[in-house]
């Protein structure tokens, strides 16, 4: 029997097939990422769907990192708290995570580390080590890793010791090599293979996964080494653990092509699809991976229209800082190029002056903001939805901006695409809000359909339009009912214009005349009303109705979406009917539709990954709905479906006592 969430979602009650959560941990730089992706890839090759999350420190080598891969025979989009099988090769992984292994689960570990005293795990914070020692002492256990394992065993967890060193030596012997130092890298593959063997998945999937993982390196020796590791690990596990007695298992299913993607990549693909041809950035976690993906794919093929050789490209510039990143992107945008920049909180803080200039001069610009734990440097590698109110108000004075919030990989793609359109249609900066939880999570999705979105360039004046002026002087900021003037680009003959950060007249020259000021402020801000009028409701909010009369209305935005949708399914199985309003456009705020959706609800719960429930505050301001119940999480770890389920049950059981629930899960 698996944990409650699993029994609820699985078709089988005692033996759970294709519904499990696997975790692997280890020191950063030791190959944990590779292990996790080869486990996930094996599952995907077996036709399954995966959702993986990555937790790590701001560190290059040595500090602890871990991956969780949840897999299922249906599409999944969130994480769960409990782990069915934990794979470890070091002491710290056991010390940190053995307690989240569910009582019917198992732990794969290296018996060589069981003698390690807790205080010798020197990457634990001292307070953490002390707390663990106190806990073990209270249970009458010793103070080493063995005690941690004993503690797990007492709860029913099965232990699977794997002497990695011995296995590595055996593989070396089999391959006739003495390169043990190099071979040690295969312990990752050993840990994954033992895990998959325990879960009953045929080794052919792992072998294919290894081949694909190393296909880029073209080093046959490396592939052979790892394949030999897969064989030895499977043999060992079958021999040693035979009938393994885990209630969870994996079995291949028939499935079609799926995209295995991380959030950074989904955004990058959306941008490219949406016509982005200049991306500027300054390195920052967790945003840079997007720019690096773009740079790695800077040359790409265009669909032929016969007019050229079909070679497309994107220029990616690594700048000296985020101020240069945004201003360089603006310079590019003035030439008619669709331009974007990508950053995280500290970088965005530096960008706000540039953003204000783009607002003042009505420049189309996309800023992708990967939120991470703030304030200040905060927690660079942890997730948070803490920048909503910042981006809504960023930059001095008042300037228009559109703010899009993506909730999952598919939305990352489509929103990145649409952001490029909105920027050009409304001639203003568009902030695409995502977060570390999305950036670094991997997930199987159906490949997006780029044909669902058209490229619309708004009132861009193309070279062929020459003559439209009929002898008049071109006025870049000519008044217009919708606030949007025909936009020429640098280099377009006959359409000379000026820009300035000063208040300006229709030509773009400095002008502080009172009437002109009022006219220009109105013009710029009117564009938000135009956008509010034109953007379809489906792009502003997503509404997920309850099956029947709802007991509770959940409100959220961004990456909390997946956990909420899956938490709702669990709630429903317990007879609690929940509906969900996901806010996707934070500016211009869809006040009317939000008010309509929420005004009839008896119990509304706002769920967000920040301290102060920022969206609830925005809803109160813009839609005049005061949401009393809030579930917040700000420990930097992503929200899980269990947490949604538990917190809603808690609130429904005692609404008066639980107006603000703080979620705490995650190591």
């Amino acid at each position, binding site marked *: 029997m698996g944990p409650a969430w699993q029994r609820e979602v699985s078709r089988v009650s005692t033996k759970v097939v294709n519904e499990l959560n696997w975790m692997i941990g280890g020191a950063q730089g030791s190959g944990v990422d590779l292990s996790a992706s080869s486990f996930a890839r094996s599952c995907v090759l077996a036709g399954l769907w995966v959702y993986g999350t990555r937790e790590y420190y701001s560190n290059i080598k040595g500090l602890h990192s871990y991956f969780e891969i949840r897999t299922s025979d249906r599409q999944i989009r969130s994480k769960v708290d409990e782990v069915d099988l934990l794979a470890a090769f070091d002491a710290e992984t056991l010390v940190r995570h053995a307690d989240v292994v569910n009582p019917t689960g198992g732990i794969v570990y290296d018996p060589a580390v069981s003698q390690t005293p807790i205080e010798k795990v020197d990457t634990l914070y001292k307070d953490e080590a002390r707390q663990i020692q106190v806990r073990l002492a209270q249970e009458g256990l010793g103070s080493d890793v063995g005690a941690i394992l004993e503690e797990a065993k007492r709860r029913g967890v099965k232990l699977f010791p794997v002497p990695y060193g011995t296995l590595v030596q055996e593989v070396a012997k089999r391959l006739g090599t003495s390169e043990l130092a190099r071979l040690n890298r295969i312990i990752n593959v050993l840990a994954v293979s033992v895990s998959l063997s325990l879960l009953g998945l045929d080794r052919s999937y792992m072998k294919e996964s290894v081949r694909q993982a190393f296909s880029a390196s073209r080093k046959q020796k490396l592939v052979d080494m790892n394949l030999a590791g897969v064989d030895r690990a499977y043999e060992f596990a079958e021999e040693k653990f035979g009938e393994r007695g885990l209630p969870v298992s994996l079995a291949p299913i028939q499935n079609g092509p799926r995209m295995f993607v991380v959030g950074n990549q989904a955004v990058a693909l959306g941008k490219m699809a949406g016509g982005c*041809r200049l991306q500027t950035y300054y390195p920052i976690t967790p945003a840079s991976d997007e720019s690096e993906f773009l740079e790695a794919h800077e040359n790409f093929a265009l669909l032929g229209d016969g007019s050229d050789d079909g070679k497309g*490209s994107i*220029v990616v510039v690594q700048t000296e800082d985020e101020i240069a990143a945004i201003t360089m992107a603006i310079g590019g945008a003035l030439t008619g190029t669709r331009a974007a920049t990508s950053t995280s909180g500290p970088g965005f803080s530096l960008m706000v002056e540039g953003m204000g200039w783009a607002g003042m001069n009505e420049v189309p610009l996309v800023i992708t903001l990967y939120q991470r734990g703030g304030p200040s440097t905060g927690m660079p590698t942890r997730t948070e939805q803490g920048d909503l109110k910042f981006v809504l108000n960023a930059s001095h004075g008042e300037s228009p901006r559109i703010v899009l919030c993506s909730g999952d990989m598919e939305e990352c793609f489509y929103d990145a695409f649409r952001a490029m359109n909105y920027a050009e249609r409304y001639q203003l900066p568009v902030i695409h809000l995502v977060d570390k939880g999305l950036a670094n999570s991997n997930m199987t999705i159906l490949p997006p359909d780029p044909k669902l979105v058209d490229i619309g360039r708004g009132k861009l004046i193309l070279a062929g339009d020459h003559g439209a002026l009929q002898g008049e002087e071109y006025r870049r900021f000519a008044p217009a009912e919708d606030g949007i003037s025909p936009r020429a680009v640098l280099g377009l003959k006959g359409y000379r214009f000026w820009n*300035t950060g000063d208040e300006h007249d229709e030509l773009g020259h400095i002008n502080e005349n009172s009437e002109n000021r009022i006219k220009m402020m109105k013009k710029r801000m009117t564009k938000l009303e135009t956008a509010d009028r034109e953007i379809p409701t489906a792009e502003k909010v997503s509404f997920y109705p309850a099956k029947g009369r709802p007991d509770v209305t959940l409100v959220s935005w961004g990456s909390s979406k997946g956990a909420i949708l899956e938490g709702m399914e669990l709630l429903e199985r317990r007879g609690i009917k929940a509906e969900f309003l996901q806010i996707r456009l934070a500016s211009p705020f869809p006040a009317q539709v939000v008010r309509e959706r929420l005004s009839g609800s008896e119990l509304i719960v706002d769920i967000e990954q920040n301290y102060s429930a920022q969206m609830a505050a925005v809803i109160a301001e813009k839609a005049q709905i005061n949401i009393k119940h809030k579930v917040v999480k700000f420990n930097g770890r992503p929200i899980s479906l269990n947490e949604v389920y538990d917190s809603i049950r808690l609130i429904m059981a005692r609404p008066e006592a639980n107006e603000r629930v703080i979620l705490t899960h995650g190591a």
Partner: protein
Amino acid sequence: MALKLTDVRTDLHNDWCSGCGDFGIEASLQMALTEMNVELHRVVIFSGIGCHGKIVHWTNTFGIHTLHGRTLPFAQGAKLANPELEVVAIGGDGDGYGIGAGHFVHAGRRNVDMTYIVHDNGVYGLTKGQASPTQKLGEQTKSLPQPNINSAVNPIMLALAAGYTFIARSYAFDNRHLKDTIKRAVAHRGMALVDVLQPCPTYNDIETKAFYSGEDRPDPATHRPVPRVYDIEKTGYKPLVTKEMTNEDVDKKTLEVIRISNEWGDRIPIGVFYQNENVPTYEDRIIGRIPSYVDRPPAIQRIQLENNKSAVDLPRLWKELIISG
């Protein structure tokens, strides 16, 4: 048809102080554009914040008046997106060597094919005369409550260290020299700096027009002032770094640039200090990675098909991410 000076001027009221060196720079720039007979629609002038920034409004080309210190990244973005543009960035000494100093250095590393002209008057004029990064240590210009206790930056040496491939200095009221220097800077293939010494008649009462032209030190024989400013290229100095030069020759030139650029006081050097066209431009470096950039840089790429769908062959692009069951 040949350009006339009136073609490159707007008819807006110019609000610089009378006697300002800005007028000399504006006139020289406009004359340079006229004489080069450039297609005006290809010219984009970027400026920063400070008195100099308004120059774009007096000039009849595309004019982008940007943020304080950020002229260079704005300008580089435009040039890289559309290399067909003739991009001239203009800054002030506080703007470019103070708040924008980081961008100044990194623009040298890139060597984008464009020109950067700096109005260098030693003070922050528009905020009423504070000391700028080029004001000398111990000087006390008119509005300073106390003498300046920062050392001055040497823009020529800084540009050399950063990798500028054309480094020049001129003087705002030596119209012919400045105009010719701007023309050479624009013609140079790579990142060009023209630092322009410029009196601020309102706030700099030390480096005045009279100071530069040496009115305080007449020639005993002719009783005519002996200008402090002198043209190094008229003394036989050759700025060009050629392919034929050995490393030792180049080192020698570098040391000479440092030595000359440190002259100040009785003799103030102007002229082209350094020119090296053997360094690949940033555009060349991009072409090395993206061959199609030559014909289709970002600004002139097609991004959509006739039916308005994305022009990118996405399934081909994301093939590596697709896994079949």
